[in-house]
C-alpha cells in the first residue's frame, strides 16, 4: 500500500483542476471569444457584438491597409533589436566586468538590479520629467552647457529614442543578474588552469566564459524578444496615443489605443490576434536561431 500511492496518479488531477479551470475561464475562453469578436460589429467597450461584419473578414483587410499597424510593427521590431543589443548586450558586458572584480561585486549587483523593482509607470513619469520640454532635467543641463534653444525630446525625430532608452535602462539589471548567476556557475578551476597555460584575461572570457554562457545567453535573448512584444506601460505613460503623429505606437499600445481610446473594439480584437501570431512566430524563430546546446 505504502508505495502504491506513488503509482496512482489520479489524485494529481484533483490538484491540477482548479488551476486548469482558472486558465479556461480567464485565458482560453477570452482568447476564443476575442477571435469571434474580431469578426463582429461591436459598437463600444463593454457591449456585446451586434452582428457579423460585412464582409466578415473586414477588420483583417483594414489591418493590412492600416499604415499605423505597419508603423507599430516596425517600432516593435526596433524594440526587439534594442532589447537584444541594448539590454542583453550591455548586461553581458556589465556581468563580465563585475565577474572580474573582487571588491564591490555585491554592490554593483544591487545597483544594476535596482531599476527592476520600480514600477514601469513610475519610471515613465520619472523620465517624462527628465525629457520635459520646458524645465526638463536634460534641457536644463544642456542650457547650462550653453545651448540656447530647447530640444523637444518627444518630437517625431527623437521620440523613438526617448521611448526606448528608459525601457532599455530598466531591464539591463534583470539580464545582468541572470548572467552573473551563469558566470558564477562556471568552475574556477577552468580559469585557473587556463591561467597556468598562459591565457590572458580576454582569452579566458573569449574561450571559457562566453562558450559556457551560451545557454544562458539564449534564454536571455528569448526572454528579451518575447518581452519586447509585451512592452506597454512605460511607452504608454510617456507617449499616450502614439504621440507625436502616431509615430511611437508599438503593437501592444496600438491594440490598447484602438480598444480603449478609439472605442473600435472589434478592430482592437483583430490587433490582439496579430499580437498573438507575432508572439508565436517570433518565439519560434528566436528559439530556432538561439538553440540551446547540450554539453
Amino acid at each position: 500500500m505504502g508505495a502504491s500511492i506513488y503509482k496512482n496518479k489520479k489524485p494529481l488531477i484533483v490538484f491540477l483542476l482548479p488551476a486548469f479551470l482558472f486558465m479556461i475561464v480567464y485565458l482560453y475562453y477570452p482568447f476564443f471569444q476575442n477571435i469571434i469578436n474580431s469578426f463582429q460589429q461591436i459598437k463600444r467597450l463593454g457591449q456585446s457584438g451586434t452582428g457579423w461584419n460585412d464582409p466578415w473578414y473586414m477588420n483583417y483587410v483594414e489591418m493590412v491597409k492600416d499604415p499605423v499597424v505597419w508603423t507599430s510593427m516596425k517600432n516593435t521590431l526596433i524594440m526587439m533589436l534594442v532589447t537584444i543589443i541594448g539590454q542583453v548586450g550591455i548586461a553581458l558586458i556589465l556581468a563580465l566586468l563585475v565577474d572580474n572584480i573582487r571588491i564591490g561585486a555585491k554592490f554593483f549587483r544591487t545597483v544594476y538590479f535596482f531599476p527592476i523593482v520600480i514600477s514601469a509607470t513610475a519610471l515613465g513619469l520619472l523620465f517624462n520629467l527628465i525629457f520635459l520640454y520646458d524645465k526638463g532635467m536634460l534641457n536644463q543641463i544642456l542650457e547650462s552647457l550653453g545651448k540656447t534653444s530647447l530640444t523637444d525630446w518627444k518630437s517625431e525625430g527623437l521620440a523613438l529614442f526617448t521611448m526606448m532608452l528608459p525601457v532599455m535602462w530598466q531591464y539591463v539589471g534583470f539580464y545582468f543578474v541572470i548572467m552573473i548567476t551563469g558566470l558564477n556557475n562556471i568552475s574556477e578551476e577552468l580559469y585557473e588552469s587556463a591561467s597556468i597555460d598562459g591565457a590572458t584575461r580576454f582569452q579566458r572570457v573569449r574561450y571559457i566564459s562566453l562558450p559556457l554562457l551560451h545557454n544562458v545567453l539564449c534564454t536571455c535573448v528569448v526572454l528579451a524578444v518575447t518581452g519586447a512584444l509585451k512592452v506597454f506601460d512605460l511607452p504608454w505613460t510617456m507617449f499616450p496615443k502614439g504621440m507625436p503623429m502616431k509615430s511611437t505606437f508599438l503593437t501592444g499600445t496600438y491594440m490598447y489605443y484602438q480598444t480603449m481610446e478609439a472605442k473600435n473594439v472589434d478592430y482592437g480584437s483583430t490587433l490582439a490576434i496579430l499580437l498573438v501570431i507575432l508572439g508565436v512566430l517570433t518565439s519560434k524563430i528566436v528559439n530556432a536561431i538561439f538553440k540551446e546546446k547540450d554539453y
Partner: protein
Amino acid sequence: MKKRILSLVLASAMVLSLAACGSKDTGSANEEPAPAETEAEAEAEAPAEQESEPAEAEAPAGPVELNVTTTFAGEDGNAQNFKNAVDAWCAETGNSVADTSATSDETFKTRVITDFETGSEPDVLFFFNGADANSFIEAGKVVSIDDIRAEYPDYAGNMNDDLITDSLVDGKKYAVPVNGFWEAMFVNTEVLDAAGVSVPGAGYTWDQFLEDCQKIKDAGYAPIACALGNIPHYWWEFAIFNHTSPATHLNVPTSVDSEQGQAWVAGMEDIKALYEAGYFPENTLSATDDETFAMFTEGKAAFLIDGSWKVGGIVNACQSDPEDPSTLDADKLAKFDVTYVPGMNDRKATDLIGGLSMGYYITTKAWEDPEKRDAAVSFVSYMTSDELVPVFAQHTASALKNAPAVDESAFNPLQVKAMAMMSGVTSLTGAVQDIFQGDCRVSTFDGMPEIVTGRVDAIDAVAEGIDAYNAQ
C-alpha cells in the same frame, strides 16, 4: 491510505478556498439587513424629508449602503464639497455610501458603461446626459424623473424642468442636474501686458485675435496654450462653432458636402492656419495638456480655452501647496482673467459652449430594491437641494427654480471675474462633441496633428468621422 485521504483533504481545501475567495465579495454586496438595534437608531435619526415621503413607499428596513459613483473626485473643484455632503447625508440618515467616484475622463465613462453591461452598476450615479448615457437608457437600466415622481411627487421639484436635458434616446428626462459648465478663454494678463495687448472683450473678433496672436508671438511668447496632439477638444468645438451658429451648432452633418459638413471642414482649416502661423507652442504636437497648461500659468503663453472647472486648476497653480488654500499667491492669481472666445460669422464672441451636461441618475436596480429605493431618492434629493446646488454650481449655471443670490464674498478673484464674464454671455450651447461620440471623433481629435501638418486633408478627416458616425 492516510496519504490518499490527506491529498483529498488538501485538494478540497484548495477548491474551497478558491470558492471562498469568489463568494466573499458577493456576500458583502448582498449583505443581510443590519441588526435591529441599528434600525432603531436609524429611525430615530431619520430626516424630516423622509418622513414626509408618500405612504405607499415602503419604509426603509434599516440603514443601507448605497453604491454611488460621480465625477467629484481627483482635481475636480467640487470633490471636497461632495465628500462633505455625503458625510452630512450619512450622518443625517444613518445610511452609508460606498463612493467609487473618479476623475471625469474616458476611462471613467467606459467603466460606468461596462458596469451597466455586466449588471454591476451603482445605485446612484452622477453622469453625462448626452450620447454617453444612450446605452444604459436604451437598456432601461435607469429610471426617468417622471417615473420617480409617480411615487415621489416632490422629486426634483425644485428644478426648472425646461433646463433639464432630454435624453437623446426617448426624449425623457433622467438626470437631475447640479452644476452646469461653460467653456471660455482664460488669459494671462502678464503676457498680454508684455506684448502690448489688451484683455479681449465682448466684441472680440477672429481678425482681432489673429492680430493679437502675432503681437504676442513677436514678443517671444506662445499665443495659445494648447496641446493639439493631446487635448484639441476645446479648439475643435469653438472652431466649428465659429462656422455654425447657436441654432445649428448641435446638428451633426449628414455628409461632408452638406453645409454643416463644410462648416466643420472650415473649422479644422482655421486650426491648421493657427498652427501654420506658429501660434501654438512649438511642442504642441508632442506636449500633454498638463505641459501647455503649465506654460499658461507660468507666464509663457497668453490664451487658454478651457472649461469652468479650470478656474479651480488655475487657483491651485497659484498656491504653493495645492491642498492648502491659505498658501494662495493672490498677486499671481490677479494676473489671470477669463473672457469670451473670438467670434466669427453668425457666432458672437459672447455665444459660448455650456449648459447642464451631467446629472444624478437612479438606476433601475436600486429602484426595484425596496431597501434601497428610499435611500436613493433621499440621496439625490439631498444632493440637488436648494441649499447644496449653489455650493456646487458656484460661478456656473444651475437648473434651480429659485436660485439663491450668490455670495461673492466667498469667491476668489478669478471666480468673481468668471461671474462677471458669465453675466455678459448671450447664449450657452451644448457641445456637439458630446453627441459626436465614439470612434467617429478619432479622425479629427486624435488625427488633429495630421490635419494641421497637412498629412491628411481636413475634408478627408471630417468625412471619415461622419462616415463612422453614420455607421453607428
